[in-house]
């Protein structure tokens, strides 16, 4: 069993008005699609038949608002865990544009970890090809007026968020996580990876 302690939650990182404005913006006629997984054996992306959430890429307009907030949250994490030596400081150089997640009633995020090398190989066909390895995972929480949808690390470490919180944790296999099924309302969040 792993020990889940190397994460941070930046409380109220996203102002309430920004959360509401973003939800309003992304609900207006945007090209949401079903969340997909990657089959590395067949080099294909696929969607599970049931309970998949919806995902949406960010626009330039919203990037201008969220990127500084996301940058500062990553910086908080890096500052907390920075090593003392020259080569152990500032251990991420980039982060990916955020992707929005929308969970309707009956949907969830299945347990997984974020060491998704396929995105970061610099030549991915299905994904935006970044070069590097995913080091940090970031989840921004845009609302809390829903039921269910608990964020759980490794089956037994449950986190409770408020709208505006940002969670950051290591992307590696020690930090498997999931979002439980939504039972009431809609859950809006966004994700990004630092590398």
């Amino acid at each position, binding site marked *: 069993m792993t020990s889940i302690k190397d994460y941070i939650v930046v409380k109220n990182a996203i102002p309430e008005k920004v959360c509401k404005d973003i939800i309003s913006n992304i609900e207006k006629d945007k090209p949401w699609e079903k969340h*997909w997984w990657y089959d590395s054996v067949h080099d294909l992306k*696929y969607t599970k038949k049931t309970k998949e959430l919806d995902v949406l890429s960010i626009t330039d307009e919203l990037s201008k608002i969220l990127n500084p907030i996301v940058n500062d949250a990553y*910086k908080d994490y890096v500052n907390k865990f920075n090593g003392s030596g020259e080569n152990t400081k500032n251990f991420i150089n980039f*982060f990916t544009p955020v992707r929005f997640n929308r969970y309707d009633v009956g949907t969830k995020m299945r347990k997984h970890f974020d060491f998704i090398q396929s995105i970061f190989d610099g030549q991915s066909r*299905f994904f935006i090809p970044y070069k590097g390895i995913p080091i940090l995972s970031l989840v921004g929480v845009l609302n809390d007026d829903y039921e269910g949808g608990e964020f759980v690390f490794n089956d037994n470490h449950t986190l409770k968020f408020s709208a505006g919180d940002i969670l950051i944790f290591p992307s590696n296999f020690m930090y498997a996580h999931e979002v439980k099924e939504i039972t009431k309302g809609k859950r809006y969040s966004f994700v990004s990876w630092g590398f």
Partner: protein
Amino acid sequence: MKDDEYKFYYWGPYLYHTKVPNEIGTEMLRRGELLKNKKDTDYREMLAGDIRHEYVFSKEDRKYFTMNTMSLFNSYMVGLNDWSHVSKVLDTRVLKVFDLWINFMQPNEYNPPHTHDGDLSFVYFPKVPKELSEEGNAYKGTGSGPGKLEFAYGEKQTMVVTGHSFLPETNDLFIFPSTLKHFVYPYKSNVERVSISGNINFEDYKGKPLPIPMNYD
């Protein structure tokens, strides 16, 4: 006695038969019924069939269908890759349904032999009355029989499989290369059978949002 060892080489088009969840069929039928009363949805001039009620779905309908069935099409691609190692599969990035229509088929209507546009095509049957099973099973002739969906690949040859035919059931989905010739036989039962067809293209991923450099200042 030791079993003989051999290799078996697959050949021809990859035809995939699966089921679509019932609730998706219910929703597509509801959307299809609405098309009957809309302007500019009559699609007969674009299609091969001798079918009085054929309507094209809207972009929103295509989106609903795509979001709820894409796992099946991805499954087709996995199977195709496993089975044939077609190089085009390896270049695939996004599957896009660019054409989608609905056929409300009545007795004595039919679809003659034809092919489709695009890379992949499909035929989906959200409503097949039980009378068609009874009529199809009662057929005594040497052909495929009433109401059958038939796929044909090349000319008939001895000891070569050049076709498959099916008596569709509710929720059946057939996915196949768009160039595969297929046709639908008429039936006599006084019932309506509803099918939905469409075409899919492989498309490259176009957007490439750049990573954002960290600012530690």
